């Protein structure tokens, strides 16, 4: 584990990810070199099968690279154990999924609490934190509703509140507007940008929507598991503030 540059949230050096083995092996990512600075908002774009979701999973510590080096805040993910990765995901990373991935039996508030429960907070602090996060995403009045009783946009707001409840340094969003109509998608993207500007956290968005990418200060294009290009506007949340 190394910490070569404290300004970099992520450092990827020749990262390769191969699924399967032998004749059935599929290379999802190949020799990816990438650095993402703390506080950056990065959009990763590419067609289906380009490797963008795989890259997001590696960045999120959900999987380990088959080869190469991937460091998050100096911690090499490939060498971290399961418990260490779980702790990173709990405290350092927030996830937003395309399908929202809310727990259907829990209310909106409980779906936010579920992310903070492993921190061992007492019941009232946990509830207060969840309420504050729901308030932040504009859903204070929907706290007691089950996911099935919420619209798609509301569900994604709950998912964003869940991803933020532990005040992570990095927020990873996988097609966050993929299941929403364009107007709702715009609202969600607006919310994410507002959060980015207010918190200064690093946000990595995976999307196939060029319009979303166009509004991002940095766009990384993936094709066939490799970085095919990059458009960079050196703006960070800090600069914006």
């Amino acid at each position, binding site marked *: 584990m190394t910490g070569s540059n404290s300004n970099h949230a992520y450092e990827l050096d020749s990262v390769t990810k191969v699924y399967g083995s032998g004749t059935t092996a599929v290379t999802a990512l190949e020799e990816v070199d990438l650095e993402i600075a703390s506080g950056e908002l990065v959009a990763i774009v590419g067609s289906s099968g380009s490797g963008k*979701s795989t890259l997001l*999973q590696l960045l*999120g510590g*959900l*999987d380990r690279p088959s080869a190469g080096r991937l460091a998050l805040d100096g911690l090499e993910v490939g060498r971290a154990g*399961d*418990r260490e990765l*779980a*702790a*990173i*995901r*709990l*405290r350092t*990373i*927030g*996830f937003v*999924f395309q*399908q929202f*991935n809310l*727990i*259907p*039996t*829990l209310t909106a508030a*409980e779906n936010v*609490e*579920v*992310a903070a*429960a*492993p921190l061992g907070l007492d*019941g009232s602090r*946990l509830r207060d934190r969840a309420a504050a996060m729901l308030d932040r995403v504009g859903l204070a009045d929907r706290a007691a509703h*089950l996911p099935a009783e919420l619209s798609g946009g509301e569900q994604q707001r709950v998912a964003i509140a*869940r*991803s933020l409840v*532990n005040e992570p340094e990095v927020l990873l969003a996988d097609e966050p507007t993929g299941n929403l109509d364009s107007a709702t998608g715009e609202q969600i993207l607006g919310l994410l940008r507002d959060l980015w500007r207010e918190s200064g956290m690093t946000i990595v968005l995976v999307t196939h929507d060029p319009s979303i990418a166009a509004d991002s200060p940095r766009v990384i294009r993936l094709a066939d598991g490799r970085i095919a290009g990059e458009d960079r506007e050196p703006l960070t949340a800090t600069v914006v503030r």
Partner: protein
Amino acid sequence: MFYIRYLGAELRRRKGRTILTATCLALGVGLVVSVTALSAGLDDAQSEVLEPLTGVGTEMSVARPMEIEEGGPPPDAGGGPIGLDNLGKAGEKFDTYQYVSTDTSFPAAKRKQVAAVDGVDATAVGLTLSVAHVSGRVPEQSGSGAAPATGAPPTGSATAGGPPDSINFETTTVSGVDTSDRDLGLLTASQITDGFYISGASDAVVSRSYATQEGLAVGDTVDVGGKDFEVVGISGGAVGGQSSDVYVELDRLQELADLEGRVNAVEVQAASADEVQAVSDRIESAFPGSEVTTASDLAEQVSGSLVDAENLSGKLGTALAIVALIGAFGITTLVTLSSVAKRTRELGTLKAIGWRQWLVVRQVAGESVVQGLIGGLLGVAVGLAAAAAIGAAGISLDASLESASSGGIPGPAGVGGPPGADAATSVASTVTLGAPVSPGMALLAIGLAVLGGLIAGVFGGIRAARLSPAEALRSLG
């Protein structure tokens, strides 16, 4: 605590799964409770049958069985053929009583020898005899003839082909009771269902079956050995070994049978119920030739539908309960595994947002254990309902026990039949089947259901633990 709220929400909002799992466990556990309750009911029924036999506080009965050799009873056995020559001349009336038994009599003082055995708490002596009343006219005969004392026809050419019409046989089993201890002995005060216990030399207690057979009631008189006794009480529910038709004072029977100072049974109460078998062995060693009958020995001799039901409950019922329980555990495990498979996205998400593996496993196993607890409670309710239904059905079971009346007196020379030929009696009783459910049994049932939930939870938890968050999320697109 959040995890408990989460658990509650899962069980409450996934009602179908919760109900299915709890119902499977409830049926399995309910069957176990029912079978166990039925078995307890059958045990109680057997105890009820044996209780009058063993008497209150009596755990053992000591006797000296007579050894019957080929060719007839020993000379001191009592009984044997009744010589017609001894009854008088042909055509003359006769009326005689014979006292016989399968057990050898011994001096009443032997009681002290038994009482001295380590582990014996109390003793009481008794004498039980078959009293054969033979009366009629002496038949014509071409040679020497004999009439058996105990119910078989007299022998001799005059009787070839069947008993002579002029001879009557009546056999009654009579016990002489040591009335000094009303809680121990051949007849205890607790056995009296009508009237009173024996308190005088002319008092008699008759068994309910004998009273019914002979049309006797309290206040009537009964003939024993040619003497009239007043029926002062009726003994109820007597089944088995020491059951007699009539009970009188020991001294009176000894006097009638010309057996002063002799008895043929010692009733023994052990100091500890756990020591019954050991005390039994010690008595047999200390008292050569004796045979000790314990309640458990008698239990083995019980026959009838009670025993059939016990066998059915013991074998088929237990097997059914085990199969049902295994089936319930299996279905619960499958439902849990299926639930884990359906919740792949949910469990993968939990891991993705930082839940450690053991937290996910604990959550899955916890849900399963609580489902087991619910199933257990429902199962106990099912079992209680089944037990109540069994009790309400009022199923009657019959029990019979082959018993031999005690005794052992040498009869007059040349008189008497084979002892035991009709001294052996089969006494029947009918008991109503119940199915008691004890708190311990209910707790055990709940424990079994929780165990079933735990087993399912462990399998489900292992499956959940093996989920890679990336694969779980990837597989669902």
